[in-house]
């Protein structure tokens, strides 16, 4: 089977921060309530992390599980492993009410890297970045589109919908232009 392509073919931009489109990453949207006891098991089986608390993302190597809403989680894993993860979820959840859907191709993922990475996001998102905790997954708006991000390594990982990938790339690049540092 041919390899899938990421929306922008891993485009990148060098400004006062480095912007890179990464992926494709495997992603699964998993909906169930945390009080369903099978859920933690399913997450563990699929990506090996514990169930994240409100607004947290649990990262384990190249896999992660993020809290999206009181009954929705995002599982992140290598692109090719989603089938196995879906099977593991189905098995663990059994008859418990849930919905799992592969959404790997519905997303675009960016890295914003550098010690002023927060300034790039501060130009686009109505979020108090100083108050963003380690391991916090923030869903918000970047200019005119929905986005989610978390701190990771020397910057941020930013996720948006695939169809607006080039818009997001444009926003991030514009905001990272050299000379436009906020401080």
């Amino acid at each position, binding site marked *: 089977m041919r390899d899938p392509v990421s929306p922008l073919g891993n485009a990148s931009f060098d400004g006062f921060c480095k912007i890179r489109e990464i992926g494709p990453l495997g992603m699964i949207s998993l909906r169930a309530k945390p009080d369903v006891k099978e859920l933690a098991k399913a997450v563990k089986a699929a990506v090996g992390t514990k169930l994240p608390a409100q607004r947290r993302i649990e990262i384990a190597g190249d896999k992660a599980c993020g809290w999206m809403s009181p009954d929705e989680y995002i599982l992140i894993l290598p692109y090719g492993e989603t089938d196995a993860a879906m099977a593991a979820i189905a098995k663990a959840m059994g008859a418990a009410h849930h919905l799992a*859907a592969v959404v790997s191709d519905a997303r675009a993922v960016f890295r914003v890297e550098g010690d002023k990475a927060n300034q790039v996001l501060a130009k686009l998102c109505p*979020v108090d970045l100083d108050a963003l905790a380690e391991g916090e997954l923030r869903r918000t708006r970047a200019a005119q589109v929905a986005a989610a991000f978390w701190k990771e390594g020397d910057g941020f990982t930013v996720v948006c919908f695939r*169809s607006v990938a080039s818009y997001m790339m444009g926003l991030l690049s514009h905001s990272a232009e050299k*000379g*436009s540092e906020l401080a």
Partner: protein
Amino acid sequence: MSTRLQKGGRLIDRSRAATFTFNGKQLTGFAGDTLAAGLLANDQMLVGRSFKYHRPRGIVASGAEEPNALVNMGEGGRFEPNQRTTTTELFDGLTATSQNHWPSLEFDVGVVNNYAARFLPAGFYYKTFMFPRFAWKHVFEPVVRQSAGLGKVPQGPEVDRYEYAYAFCDLLIAGGGIAGLQAALVAGGAGKRVILVEQTPHWGGRAPVDGDVIDGISADEWVKKTVQALEKMSNVTMRLRCMAAGVYDHGYVLADEKVADHTPGDGRPRHRLWRIRAGKIIAATGAIERPLSFAGNDIPGVMLASAVRDYVVNYAVSPGDRTVIVTNNDDAYRTAIALKEAGLEVPVIVDARTNVTGDLPAKARAMGIRVEAGRAVVKVKGAKRVTGVAIGLQAGEGAVLEEIACDAVAMSGGWSPVVHLWSHCGGKLTWDDAQAHFRPDATRPPTNQDGAAMVATLGSANGQLSAAAALADVAAQLGGKAVTADTVHEAALEPVWIMPQGAGHKLKMKMFLDYQNDVKVSDVQLAAREGYTSVEHTKRYTTLGMATDQGKLSNINGLAVLAGALNDKIPNVGTTTFRPPYTPVPLGALAGESRGDIFQPLRKSPMHGWHEAHGAYMEPVGLWRRAYCYARGSETHEQAVQREILNARANVGMLDASTLGKIIVKGPDAGRFLDMLYTNVMSNLGIGKCRYGLMCNEQGFLSDDGVVIRLSDDSWLCHTTTGGADRIHAWMEDWLQCEWWDWKVYTANVTEEYAQIAVAGPNARMVLEKLGGMDVSKETLPFMSFADGTLGGLPVRVHRISFSGELSYEIATPAGHGLALWEALIEAGAEFGVMPYGTEAMHIMRAEKGFIMIGDETDGTVIPQDLNLGWAISKKKADYLGKRGQERTHLASPDRWKLAGFEALDGSVIPDGSYIIADGFNGNGQRNTQGRVTSTYYSPTLKKGIAMGLVKGGMDRLGDVVEFNTLTTATVKARVVDPVFYDKDGEKGNA
């Protein structure tokens, strides 16, 4: 004349000259100058013409309150009208031209208005220009418009870029004078997250100019020391050139940072618009000096006393050799002293107060300056420049006692706190009799989301005008280590609103309140006389305070004159509303980064690039771009569309349908939920099957349609229209979260996970078979079923559904494979004559089949019953969304317009948008109608015009001939026909 002094100038750098031009004349200033300072240094006092009378206008102020000195600045894509010279930093290469005159600044034809001023009082235009009727628009208005306006019209496209930035803090302090700095120091020291913004390029405000001594050191030194201390605090952010423009609800503050106005073209964003969310806002925004109202107070050379002082101290610019001071307070004496110390002449200080005491007058007198108490400027002499003043008694009616030659007049009518930020969200003011100004009433602040005070004011903005009082105010409100300034004893001011107090009408017609809009004392009195007694009426009738300075100089004087005319107290008259922004903000800055490629998100399907590379004409559909058609060579769009249709009908076509919404609905109650959502039953759909469904809103009106497929026992996938994906998903979640929250249903919007391609036409199956990988035969995959598998090695879900009426497969594949699948199909289809087709071909093909289109046959007022879709409305269900709405009398009426097909008798295409005429006229004289066209096309398949539309009686009218209107008096006669024009038995789609 005004000129550069040899010594001094705390803000200029004499080692760095800046060359600039004004009206083509090359001039030189220094780095650190404002443009106004640079102009004055070159004796350019006359800088513009007023709005109405085109009177000569000079520089009055030294800051944001300047009403007159506005220029056209820059060139091409950097041209900007109405730039305020007093807040524009001078830079090398700056070009400016004066405004509102023709042919030249010195000789302006518009000045005839000045000579006719007597006939042009406030509101004169409401009383005339009424006859003949057409004359306002065609004769008078063009003249008014041409003579009004100020700056020229920008021409070039914008060349600069802009950006937004978000910031959060406990405390936002607007104003970097000593009160703001000290407040930041205290709050920063207490660990608060502080943002301190200052609109000018300098910290310290007026204190250094006024020569204040703080904590035993000069204000200059204290400011430097404090700024250094603040810079060390990581919890304090400081921004110069950043103007807090407006306070909005819940602690939201807009601030405009002029990042590169003074360094144009250096690649940085020109402005940055800060969107700050503050726990609390402190307005330490200072105060603005008021002019005095005496005749000729608008002649170039008459300036605010504080501005004169600023130009001398900050920029070493002398506004004149001989400056007469006119005042009602002690502060103006500082200007006299500063002028004297700079070696300039002050022939007299005209003080309206009969009793002049206080430290500063004493000092002035000691310096040998003549002080005349109880005196008034009766009028200023001069035309384009002050040549002298006539002096009389303030208590008199204008008899001249003495004339004194001078080339500048420095006036001071007292100070008014800058309360804008306090007032934007409703902070109330109180009248301070002693200082004759409105100041914030701390007991009635604007409130935030918790109902708590949102804004506080400090220092002069709070009516604490002296350095000592301002710093004491900080200590009182914020605590912290006490900082003291040396106290200078100042005697009370005496309110003076008209000078001299008994001035007659002739003088009052020359006393200007609003310099830019040419509003005089006599105008306000006229408004009061005519009954425009509410302060808002007066403002609007006279245009007082409506100029680009928004009344920063004129409001209080105007209110006082109005109060006088009404024989009422000033606080009873009240103020007009303060609205953002504090000073004008470029629209470009307000639009932020949003322009060009990132004006709005442009949603792209995975095959978007392919379409563009293959000549597609793309049309906006919501935020998406979809291929309208793929014109080849010299084809017109119309020809391309026809070719695409004929090819799909004869061979095979391909449509990018990726934008259609796809929503998974899963759970034990999913079937029940879908039965509520759709008008028909979805719970009994067989696994592996497809069913067309309709959704209505609660009103009963059709809102979306699409094919639903059953994936498993407890899961369905609902297709929506392109525009419906997010809307319908939100709609589903709304009902699940807010009404039926105990139902066990989850939804997931997977629209963007899949690319979707419609392969339609008699050869469609052959194309898929060529790719291979799964059985797509009629037997295995009959019409209205779907199957998962692979095609050409790519994972796919293939649906046997058809919107074109042809044998059709809609193939979904993960978006990352979309382009690969598309290209594979194009390649495999080559031998079968495959061609891509666009949205217009799709529209026409579905119309040939009589399929309705959301947005064409529906418009938000159409119910499914109108469209003969009764078959898709379950009669068995007790309830579905919209059912009750459809039972309302008007929706259940037999008189509703219903769907039918139409064919013009002459085979032509019925005009898009036309109505079916009925006999007679309604009560309002409008022609009666009985229907309208909803879709109308030339059908290349049938070689004639076809149309769908709504007509009273609908299909009961088959065979009737009706008349459609056109945009001429002609009508188009058309026959009511079956809307299915092509393949009535559906054999092709079923093949």
